[in-house]
Every structure is written in C-alpha cells, then in structure tokens.
C-alpha cells in the first residue's frame, strides 16, 4: 500500500476528509457501495510525463516560468506526481514584507517607484522556489485583474497585499480567494467600492455598481450561461442565454456598501497607513439595509455587511457557471489557447469535486468545491496538455505571453540572482503589449474569447487571446527587447556588472563550435523539441557565416556570436513562440 503523502492544510477537517477519500480509493474504487466523489479518468501512467528530457522540458515550460537544464536533468526519469505535490507544499513567495521594508527605508518625501511591484515579480518568476505557485499567481492576476498602471501605482503596499492574496490562495480555494479579494483595499480601490455608500432615497443616490458587475462578469461567471464544458447553453431560438441583467447588478451592488479602510472614519485612510494593506471592514451605518436580490437569490433586509457579502459570494460561487468559466480561462493561461470542451469539462469536474488523482494514484485537493490544487493538477496533467506535438491536433498549443518569454530566457541561461530593478527595460514593457500587473483595464491585456480576424485560428473557430496584443508594432518591439537581453545590451542603472538580469552562456559557448549540438541544446531547453526543420537548417546556415576561428584572439567572440544568434533565431521562431 502506497504511503499517502501528507497533505498540509490548516483546516484539520479537510485533512481528515482527504485521508478518507484516499483510503476509499486505495481500497479499490467503487467497491462496497461506499458513497464518495468519483475519481477522475486516469491520466497517463506513472512516470511518462518525465520519461524523456524533451517531455520534461515541455512540462516545465508550462508548469514553471521556463525549463532549465538543471531541472531537466534532475527530473527526467522521476515521477511528476511527486514534483507537483512538492510544488503544492512549497511556501509562498510574499511581496508585501519586502515592499514594506523598502518603503520604510525611503527618505522623507520619497516615493517607491511603481515599477518595484513588477521588479519583485520578475525576480520571483525568474528565481523563486515556488515556480508553479507564481505561475498561477500570474494567471490569476489576468483573471481577477487589479492594475497598478493608474493611481494604484502610488500605493505599492496595497498592490503587494493583493499579490500576496493571490500567492496564498493559488493553492488554496477559489471561494476563499474571492472573499480575500473582496476585502482587499486593492480591489476596493481599483473597482471603486471603498466608501461605497448605501442608497439615499432623498437624493436618489444609488450604490456604485462597478464591483457587482465585474465580480460576476469577469471574475466568476461571465455573462452567458455555460455548460460544464465551457460551451454556451442555447435557448429555443438557438441563442446564448444571459444569466444576469442590470437589475441583478443593482441588487448585488447593495451588498458591497459600507466597506472602507479599517479606522475610525468611513472613507478615510486615517493616520495608520497599514490600513491600506490589510483587509477592509464594513461600516454598518453605510451598509444597505434593504433586501438585496440578484441571480435568483434574495438576501433579507437588515442583513449585516459581513453576512451579506458571505451569502452573495456563496450564491455566486455555487452557480453552475463558476467551474467552467474559471477552468477554461486557467487552461488558457497555462496550457491551451482554445481547449477542447472535453478538456474544460474534466477540469471543471475537478474544480467542483475538489480532488484530483495523480498518476501515482495519490490524491490532491481537500474535496471542497473550488479547490485550486485539484484544478491546477487537472489542467497540467490532462491528456490534452501532455500530447506529443508531433501527433497533436493543429489546434493545440498556446502562444507564450511576450513578457513571460523574457523570464524564460533568464531562467534558461541560469540567472539565479536577478535584480530586475536594475534593468531599465523591465520598468515598462508596454511596447511588447503587456507588463506584469499593469493591465490597461480590468479586462486584462487580451480577452479569453478573442478570435483573431483573418487568421488561421479564426477560420478553425479557435480562441487566441495572445494574438490580441501581437501586431506589426509589438512584434518588432518584442524582437528588439529580447535581443537587448540576449546580447546583454539592456541598460542597467548601476555600474555593477552583475546587477540586473544577466545570462550565463558558458554551457553554450563551450559547444558553440558544434552548430548541431548548440541547436539541440537550445531546442531542448527553450522549446522542448519543437523547432522545425526549416529553422534548424537556417541556424546551421548562419553558423557557416560565423566560423569559429579556433586558437585566435577572436575565438571567444565567435563562440559568443554563434550562441547569441542561435538564441535570437530560436526565441523568435514560431516553434518557440508557441508552447506545445
């Protein structure tokens, strides 16, 4: 009998429940008439995910911010179930403590630059231990969007508090995440409900509707009724069905009234700045005492704020759209731009049931609806996500986000002590179409439903979110930006040669005289074996243009030139741009 890996969770009841489920499964599925959530269809058998270096690289390309040769070598031949459980158990990177420290170190009157938020994110993404968790943090930040591109740029601690919520709940539960977000000053500020007052019949004033709408439309349910597989339900005329109208919004808006910073005065930040980076509280005098009706639910009159918010989030969370709406988008952020309905349905089930059976038959997840570990495992270990590119359908894959490609590069070339703050370019990547945590609006950099006009993916009826930010301007900007890093021309602020984000090309320059070996190494690390014959042939032809003048003073420069050219030709190749 396999020893069940301990599932660390602060709620002991959940742990007991997990052991209960595991015991049933180990005892023989379905025997004895015991009622238990059904286990998922079995994913690939033990050890196949890491059974070759290219497969390991491809998986790490999805589950981390980029494969490294070290990881490829150490993980190939091992069991992915252990890896993913290990990731779930790694402590979370937190952003608030370091931001607070930096704020406290400021001279009087100085401000922490807006970019510090993304600087720390880049550093974590490049080198932090909790890779999968931070990958999920980025994914969540593109669904439950808060942006510091506007006035929140002046409140880095508020923003960091929001990032820590995502980090802590990335492997927690989505219901808890929704609650923490609702009480966060960051979301309260961004969607304008801090100091949102109940209605006033005398003046006609009504509560601000912003959060009520975007909470439902963008963070939980969407507008149209969904099947569990993410497809639209249709009415008798074959039309999609809207699940809420403006009256639901005005009803729900009453729930989010009375929230403000925790101090004595409603609507004031007060003297204690820490109120801007700890949960909001409800001021009962400003909370609506009316009946609050929405989505077929009615919260009775005179229900207090905390209870109203709790009931409202429960009602939304229990809706049939919750699982497919979130699951499809998380899949899009991680493994597939246009997942098959069957894939979405499998992940939705894991979300709803709260557990997932790993290849080694151990179970992750607490069994509660909304369990993030179960959902993430279901996404990464689904058969659709693990298809061999050589035989996978032409509709599979996902374009790597432009800002993530830079992080891929830093990891691929062993930057283990990054200092993003020292890189001028990392202060504003908007020319490439996006910058971490700086979405232009609550609608993220691109829409999950984006269909690229005139494209091959559009002709096949596929969604392609990343194509929404790829155009004649941003694609050239990407080439120039990635080249600035590849060729180590990106300006630093300090004189420290080790400052910033720098590559270590020694592993590559050592074999640069052997063009084929160099290509193979970079293909393995960067694409997991997806470079096509044409690209390989072109790189080899380029090698002929840059011979290595062995034994001369030029040898080192020749080797380095070959390495850089190969990297730029790989990292702009569609075989790299598209993660398979």
């Amino acid at each position: 009998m396999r020893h069940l890996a301990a599932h660390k969770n602060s709620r002991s009841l959940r742990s007991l429940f997990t052991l209960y489920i595991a015991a049933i499964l180990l005892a023989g599925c379905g025997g004895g008439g015991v009622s238990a959530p059904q286990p998922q269809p079995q994913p690939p058998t033990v050890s196949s995910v890491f059974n070759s270096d290219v497969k390991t690289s491809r998986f790490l390309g999805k589950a981390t911010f980029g494969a490294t040769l070290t990881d490829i070598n150490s993980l190939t031949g091992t069991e992915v179930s252990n890896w993913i459980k290990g990731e779930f158990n790694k402590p979370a990177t937190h952003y608030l403590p370091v931001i607070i420290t930096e704020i406290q170190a400021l001279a009087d009157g100085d401000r922490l630059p807006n970019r510090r938020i993304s600087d720390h994110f880049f550093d974590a993404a490049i080198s932090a231990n909790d890779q999968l968790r931070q990958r999920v943090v980025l994914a969540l930040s593109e669904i439950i969007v808060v942006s510091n591109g506007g006035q929140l740029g002046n409140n880095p601690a508020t923003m960091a508090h929001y990032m820590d919520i995502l980090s802590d709940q990335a492997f927690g539960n989505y219901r808890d995440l929704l609650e923490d977000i609702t009480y966060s000053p960051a979301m309260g500020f961004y969607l304008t409900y801090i100091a949102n007052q109940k209605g006033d019949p005398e003046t006609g004033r009504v509560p601000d509707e912003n959060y009520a709408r975007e909470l439902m439309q963008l963070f939980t349910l969407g507008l149209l009724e969904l099947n569990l597989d993410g497809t639209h339900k249709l009415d008798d005329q074959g039309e999609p069905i809207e699940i809420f109208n403006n009256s639901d919004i005005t009803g729900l808006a009453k729930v989010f009234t009375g929230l403000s910073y925790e101090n004595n005065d409603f609507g004031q930040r007060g003297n204690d700045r820490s109120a801007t980076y700890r949960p909001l509280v409800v001021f009962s005098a400003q909370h609506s005492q009316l009946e609050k009706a929405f989505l077929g639910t009615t919260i009775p009159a005179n229900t207090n704020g905390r209870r109203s918010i709790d009931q409202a989030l429960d009602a939304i969370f229990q809706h049939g759209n919750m699982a497919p709406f979130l699951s499809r988008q998380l899949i899009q952020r991680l493994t597939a731009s246009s997942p098959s309905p069957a894939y979405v349905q499998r992940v939705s089930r894991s979300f709803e049931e709260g557990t997932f059976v790993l290849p080694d038959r151990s179970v992750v997840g607490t069994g509660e609806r909304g369990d993030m570990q179960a959902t993430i495992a279901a996404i990464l270990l689904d058969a659709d996500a693990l298809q061999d590119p050589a035989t996978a359908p032409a509709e599979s894959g996902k374009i790597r986000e432009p800002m993530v490609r830079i992080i891929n590069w830093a990891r691929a070339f062993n930057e283990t002590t990054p200092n993003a703050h020292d890189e001028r370019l990392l202060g504003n990547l908007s020319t490439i179409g996006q910058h971490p945590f700086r979405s232009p609006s609550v609608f993220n950099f691109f829409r999950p439903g984006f269909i690229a006009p005139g494209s091959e993916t559009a002709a096949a009826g596929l969604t392609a979110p990343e194509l929404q930010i790829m155009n004649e301007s941003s694609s050239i900007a990407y080439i120039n930006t990635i080249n600035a890093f590849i060729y180590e021309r990106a300006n630093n602020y300090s004189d420290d040669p080790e400052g910033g984000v720098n590559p270590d090309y020694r592993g590559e320059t050592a074999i640069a005289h052997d063009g084929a070996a160099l290509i193979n190494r970079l293909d393995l690390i960067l694409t997991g074996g997806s470079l096509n014959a044409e690209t390989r042939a072109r790189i080899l032809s380029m090698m002929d243009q840059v011979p290595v003048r062995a034994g001369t003073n030029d040898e080192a420069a020749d080797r380095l030139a070959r390495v850089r050219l190969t990297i730029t030709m790989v990292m702009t190749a569609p075989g790299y741009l598209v993660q398979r």
Partner: protein
Amino acid sequence: MSMNRRRFLSSASSAGAVSFAGSAGLLTALGNSKAYAADMSGYKALVCLFFFGGQDAHDTVLPFDQSSYDGYAALRSGLFSDYAAQAGGSSRERARLRELAPTNAAEFGGRQFALPEALDPLKALFDSGNAAIIGNVGPLIEPMVRSDFNQGIKTQPQRLFSHNDQQSTWMSSSPEGETLGWGGRLVDNIAGQTPIFSAISTFGNTVFLSGQTTTQFALSTSGPPEVSRLRNNNNGLLGPASGSDAAAQLLIDQYKDVRAIRSNLYEKDSAAVAERAFSSNEAYRGALDNAVALETAFPSSRLGAQLGAVAEAISIRGSLNMSRQVFFVGMGGFDTHDNQAEDLTLLHTDYAASIAAFYAATQELGIENDVTLFTGSDFGRSLVGNGNGTDHGWGAHHFVVGGAVNGNHIYGDIPPYATGHAHDAGNGRLIPNVSVEQYAATLGKWYGLTDTELTSVFPSLVNFAQKDLGFMV
C-alpha cells in the same frame, strides 16, 4: 467564449468568421470579388476616436437653461460638491459653462445646452460650423422608448451595460466575439489601392478595423519600428558576420519565418504576424521618406501623439496610394464610477486640445473637407450618481469634426436631464434616440457607399426611417 459552429455566416468570407451576432444582426457578407459600386473618387478619411470606459454624456453636454440646470444640479449634488472642491472652484457653475448656439436651437423649445470650459477648443470648432453634436446616439436594433424597454416588447441590443460587449457593438453591431467591424467593411474592396494601409490603428488591435479583405495596420506613435542593430559592425546582431548580406538575409528570413511549412495553427498565425510586421513597416517607412513634417503642434499626451501619427499618415497618402482610409484612435479612463469631477476634466482637456490640433493639421494639408473625425464610446452613464461618480448607461452625445460637417447643429436629440421621461432606461440611463448604425451610415454615405451597400454593412438600418442624419455636407 464557446465555439458555436452553427452561427457560420451563410456566404462565408475567406476569413471564415464565426459571428455570435444573433438577434443583433449578422453582418451580411459581400462577395469578395465585388468591388463597391459607390463613388470612391478623390480621397476621404474617417477617424474614429473611441473613449474607452463609457464617457458621461450628461457631464459633457450639460443643460444650460435655468430650469434644466437647476434640476440637474439637484440630481447631481454629490458630483457638484466635488467640482466645487476643485482648485479654482466649480467649472460646473452655470456662469462658467459655455453656452451653445446651434442653428437648430429653436427645436429644443427653450431648452439650452452648454459645454464645460475644458472643451473650449472643441467648442470653437462647433461654433465655426466645423463640428456637430450627435445627441443621444447608441446601439439600437429598432426604435425604442421607455415603455418598450420596461415591457421588453421590442428587440433590444444584447448585453447592454457591459463594457466589452458594448464596445464591440459600437464597432461591429455585435457583442464581443464578432470578427468584422464596420470601419474595416467600409474600406473593403476599394478599387485601385493596395489594402495594406487602408485601415490603421494607433491603439492596438481592434475589431472596428477588421473587414472581409481588410486587415488593420498597427501604427506605432514613434514611427514604424525596425529591428535594431541588424548590421552595426561587430556591435550588431550579426557580430563578426555584420558585413555579410547572406547572414543578414538569414536572420531576417528567420524572423519572418520565410518558407516554413507548418501545421500548427497558432504557429502559422504567429508567423503571419511577424511577416506582416516586416513587410508593412518597411513599406510604410519607405513612404515616410518623402514626408514633409507638419508644422501643427500636437499635445504631448498619448492621444495627441496618436492623432499626430494619423495626421502624418494622411500626409503620405499619395505615397501609399490611398483613396479611402479609416483610422482608429483610442483613449481610456472614462469609466468614472468614482472621482469623475477630476478625471473627466482631465480627459476633456486632453481630447479637446488634441482634436483641435488634428483639425488644424488637416487644414495645413488642405484636406479638412476630406477628413472627418467622429467620437464613440461604450455607452453614456447614469444621471443619478453613486456619490462622486456614475454608473454604466447606454445612449450618449458625441462629436463629429471636419470641414465637411454641417456643424454648429445638434442632431439626434438631447433628452431631459431628469428621470422618468420617454427615453429613460432607469436612473437617467438613456435609451438612444438615434442608433449607431444611423450615425455610421451617415458617415458611410459621405464616404461614397450606395444605399444598398450601406444596408448590407448596417443590418439594422432598415428599421429606421432616417438613414442619413444629415450632418455631412
């Protein structure tokens, strides 16, 4: 967004676009081989300036006659306090509003209107007859009034009050997911010009500019970018091979993914973007070589830079061999649920100055009669506020600017600044008096399309009696 394959267009274009239009109207496909029969002589340009977030029309075109003004001030007491608290006092004091004197003032029966002082440069264009106001325009399938809306007895546009869906509906007559926009459709099949620069955006990818044969060109405000340091002696990308033409060609070929045979659709699309990036930017750069710098100064804001880039693009229309162009320019920040007094004032100041500069540039080029700029936005906003902001509305008042505009006139209608009237959808959200399609078709007719072609591009136009609102000469 699910893939509902049953909604393929009956005569599918080469893009095979899947429309989710439903009752909002399918954009009927014109055959690819049929050029417009319309009059496409000379040069004409349309510039769409889109206010993302939903501009509050009530706080842009304000009531001026005493009775309406007093009622408005009472309904918006929270907002008026915020204005009063601003440095320099309240710009919404009646004495500080700029009264409009449109040629059709008498039609409003004693009601008068004004613009806030931040819009002075735009008001100057209105007063001189080169700008018009289109009152209460928004998505409509058929005419509607309050009782229709409340009883649900007419066909109403889908997904009202939702930002992304209403942006899409303004641009394409359908909610989010549509892949053809009317701006792109207007320049489809223009005889004799290469389509490549007929639709230009300075604000990213937009469905507005997507046509059946038209694909937009994304124009960077800092000029068409090219690969840096390609051949910079040993300091460049090619290193020791900088002198080699063959090496340079290999690198560019790789960036363009030339000759690659691919099956994965995402790879194909990625390659297509890259290829276009090189060929289009190079062609544009070539045309810019002959450009004469404009003397007109533009504001240094992002909007000013966009309109400056559009003016520059128009100045090289000859080199680009263009007779019809559509431009898309954008501005964010209009979703003023909060802080409206401060935010909207800044936005007004920016766009009024930028539009005025743009008009001046067209005069400098001698083509002010051939270029028309028009504004649009997701929606207007509620009249009854939430304290210091407003919530999502529907119909809104917009501006059309250009030498060919019958200016100093208010088209459409401006409903009372109150609740309970015939065009109140609740809380002062306006049910539009004129539809976006009527607005757009008026522009399309000026552009040269025939009535038949306009009906094809604007499927709900048949439901409205007035297909030409009359604001273009």
